[in-house]
């Protein structure tokens, strides 16, 4: 775990033999600004920013292919237990709300993919959104498939970024 002195944002890093994961808090302001810059109107950017957002880097550091499915991950905390909200979960809302095509395309590719197959040395960065309000503490259970088996790890004491105080 590392907290940046200037921004106050915390990054959690976890790794085992085959997989590494980095979860960097994003402030609601950062999320708002990013999606406003991609063509979202203020209300829709606010809807995204009201969630718990992490910039995530996942890397296959082993010698076997691994498969990730975010719907098999869980955040557990006082709000209950739920998988992350993936792009697929959001797109119906964006279509219904008539969000501009360019904004919907950017949203899709900015989010960490809901499912992905990583060969050795493959890695991706993308946002993972949890259905939790800012500043919520939670535990994350991540799961991945490797060599025909499901593996699991728990990352306790994570916290969503909150609105800056003062």
């Amino acid at each position: 775990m590392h907290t940046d002195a200037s921004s106050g944002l915390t990054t959690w890093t976890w790794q085992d033999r085959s997989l590494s994961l980095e979860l960097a808090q994003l402030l609601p302001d950062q999320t708002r600004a990013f999606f406003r810059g991609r063509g979202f109107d203020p209300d829709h950017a606010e809807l995204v920013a009201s969630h718990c957002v992490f910039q995530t880097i996942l890397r296959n550091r082993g010698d076997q292919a691994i498969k990730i499915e975010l719907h098999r991950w869980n955040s557990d905390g006082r709000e209950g237990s739920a998988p992350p909200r993936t792009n697929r979960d959001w797109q119906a809302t964006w279509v219904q709300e008539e969000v501009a095509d360019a904004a919907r395309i950017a949203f899709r590719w900015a989010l960490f993919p809901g499912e992905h197959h990583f060969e050795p040395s493959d890695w991706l960065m993308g946002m993972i959104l949890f259905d939790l309000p800012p500043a919520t503490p939670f535990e994350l259970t991540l799961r991945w498939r490797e060599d025909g088996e499901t593996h699991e790890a728990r990352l306790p004491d994570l916290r969503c970024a909150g609105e800056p105080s003062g």
Partner: protein
Amino acid sequence: MTTMYRITMGLILVTLLAGTGAADTGMLTGIEPRPEAPPLELGDLDGREHTLGDYRGQVVVVNFWATWCPPCREELPSLQRLWDTLGPEGLVVLGVNVGEDADRIFFFTADYPVDFPLLLDLDANAIDTWPVRGIPTTFVIDPEGRIAYRAIGAREFDHPDIVERLRELRRTHSPEATMPE
């Protein structure tokens, strides 16, 4: 531009760039058997149309990217260096931008100058026909139009191992290599 906007954008860049770390260096995933590459027919920043078929007989590197994607920005200079090194030997690099307009890309290239073709997949229809789930994803197409290698996530594309693999791909498909004794 307001002060708050500058601070926020600064924080975004610090946060997004801090985590990108080192690109994997020389690793490409070999694809066997090699599937036929999907079609690619897009215009570049100058309005010139490119199709993958235009480059039949050459090794083509197809890189899917966006300006807002930190790993994409990280690897772009190495794609330019690869183009500088192997372009004169016949290698082609095509950067396929996903979902952004020409003006945004044009301004972006002031900070990230590249002179290989940047193609516009404005409505993201082209990327949907390729096996891509996240960006950056890069494919190496052999001279017969098949996908030979894939890389998910940034790489140092001018790493000697990658340069050698691409040269080897060209050599094994050159007319001289297939001519009868």
